[in-house]
């Protein structure tokens, strides 16, 4: 599909979402859809560094939580308008991503991944010990009574997260089809050869890590309003780290469609399991599906589809 058709689809989706909030359906649907959209952002963000560039980040939960806490602390300190929360969380996430980018100077492969995990643990420890941010007891956030023309704040958050998801997808798609994306693919395939072929590998890795981190931070920004009560253990939850890595891998990590497919399929499955059985099953579902894909279809759903069609390289 060409860019214009996709843009039309995106606009139509937002209009449809706004129209849906007029239905005043069961609030649960907005809650569930929000979580799925949030995973579209996280998976897409992860994929810019992990799938396009080949640096596997195990610390997505840290980026997400940092965005969420940035917003929560700002809300507690000042009466800030909503867009400022997104901007601040994106900036903080982007700066953390930038520092992760510098890590790639010294660390590759599994060593890099372990460092990202350690980074998330360090961040969590900082928050746990920070009194103003609520420490381990957590932090409450009051939702504004009304916003724009929405009757209910969750309906507003549902539309916001949809727009963020579409924005993340547009960013990923733009990168993929740009010179930047081709350079990142060269780094993923062989970093030494890429550098020797004129690709400024460090600069490109810094850009990828910063964009990835910023998007993850933004994904966390509406979270305080969504849950209204946040504490470190659930905000730095392993679910975020595992899902944002598993979803692109299951969907297909070399294109922007992969994380979208993975997030929608796995996210929906998890929401259904949460309602029908228990949320404890979520990680189990992801684990089983991920193992199956790594063994049977290492290129994800996109890879399977391409093979069916006769394997033309796109």
């Amino acid at each position, binding site marked *: 599909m060409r860019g214009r058709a996709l843009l039309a689809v995106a606009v139509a989706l937002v209009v449809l979402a706004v129209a849906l909030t007029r239905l005043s359906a069961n609030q649960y649907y907005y809650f569930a859809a929000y979580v799925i959209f949030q995973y579209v952002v996280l998976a897409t963000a992860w994929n810019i560094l992990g799938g396009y560039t080949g640096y596997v980040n195990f610390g997505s939960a840290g980026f997400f939580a940092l965005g969420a806490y940035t917003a929560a602390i700002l809300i507690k300190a000042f009466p800030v308008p909503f867009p400022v929360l997104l901007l601040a969380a994106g900036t903080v996430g982007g700066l953390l991503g930038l520092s992760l980018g510098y890590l790639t100077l010294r660390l590759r492969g599994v060593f890099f991944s372990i460092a990202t995990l350690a980074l998330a643990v360090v961040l969590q420890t900082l928050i746990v010990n920070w009194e103003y941010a609520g420490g381990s007891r957590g932090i409450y956030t009051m939702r504004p009574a009304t916003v724009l023309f929405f009757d209910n704040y969750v309906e507003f958050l549902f539309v916001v997260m949809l727009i963020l998801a579409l924005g993340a997808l547009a960013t990923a798609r733009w990168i993929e089809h740009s010179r930047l994306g081709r350079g990142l693919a060269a780094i*993923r395939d062989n970093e030494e050869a890429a550098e020797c072929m004129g690709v400024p590998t460090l600069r490109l890795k810094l850009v990828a890590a910063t964009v990835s981190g910023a998007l993850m931070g933004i994904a966390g920004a509406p979270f305080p309003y969504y849950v209204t009560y946040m504490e470190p253990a659930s905000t730095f939850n392993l679910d975020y780290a595992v899902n944002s890595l598993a979803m692109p891998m299951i969907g297909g990590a070399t294109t922007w469609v992969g994380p979208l497919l993975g997030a929608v399929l796995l996210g929906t499955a998890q929401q259904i399991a949460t309602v029908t059985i228990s949320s404890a099953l979520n990680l189990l579902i992801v684990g089983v599906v991920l193992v199956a894909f790594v063994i049977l279809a290492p290129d994800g759903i996109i890879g399977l589809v391409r093979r069916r069609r006769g394997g033309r390289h796109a």
Partner: protein
Amino acid sequence: MTAGILLDVRGVSKRFGGFEALTRVSLQVREGERFGLIGPNGSGKTTLINCVSGALGSDEGEIRFAGHDITRLPAHQRTRLGIARSFQIPKPFVSMTVLENLCIPAEYAAHARFPGAGADVVAEAMEILRLIGLEAKAHAPAAGLTQIELRKLELARAMAARPRLLISDESMAGLSSAEVDEILAILLALNERGIAIIMIEHIMRAVMRFSQRIVVLDAGARIAEGGPGEILNNPAVEKAYLGE
């Protein structure tokens, strides 16, 4: 030979931990020259090329290219100045087609240096593939190439950076005699276009036929320099290759 000096390596040393892989090596390559770099296994040829291309930093000495001091420059900037190399163990971009492999240096090196000049990256890459004899594979995935095709891809990709100096690190190793002649013909054709070439090779027949001048490394030190005839008759070189 009156052409100017393109590459000037002055007293370069490289240590890996306590092991000195290069000891104050100096050499000069002129514009458009066909230059041979030989030496027994482990004598430091690839290490020297890594220091020149910027894949490794050197511990001592100075490297100048086309009048610039490039000793501390990152590899991608050296490529943009006009140094391109092939890898002894091919390092293709495996998720891409052959053509896409060439587009990386074309976009990132050649066009960074000549902005606007021939904006058609694909047409340019196709022309190089034709020259190298790989055009039939242009749209094939690089992951499925044969050994000789991989060697050709290494050379083609280096060419796509529009180098002034091409360094070929054992592009012929493991190939049949006919294939060696094929690569040799390619390198000669590239040199015809005015590109200086450093050929690293164990196949003496090829180096001797190709090179105008040869430098011999042994245990990280330069032990001889001269034309093919002088090198063949040099007792120090014979000793290095055959032992005592």
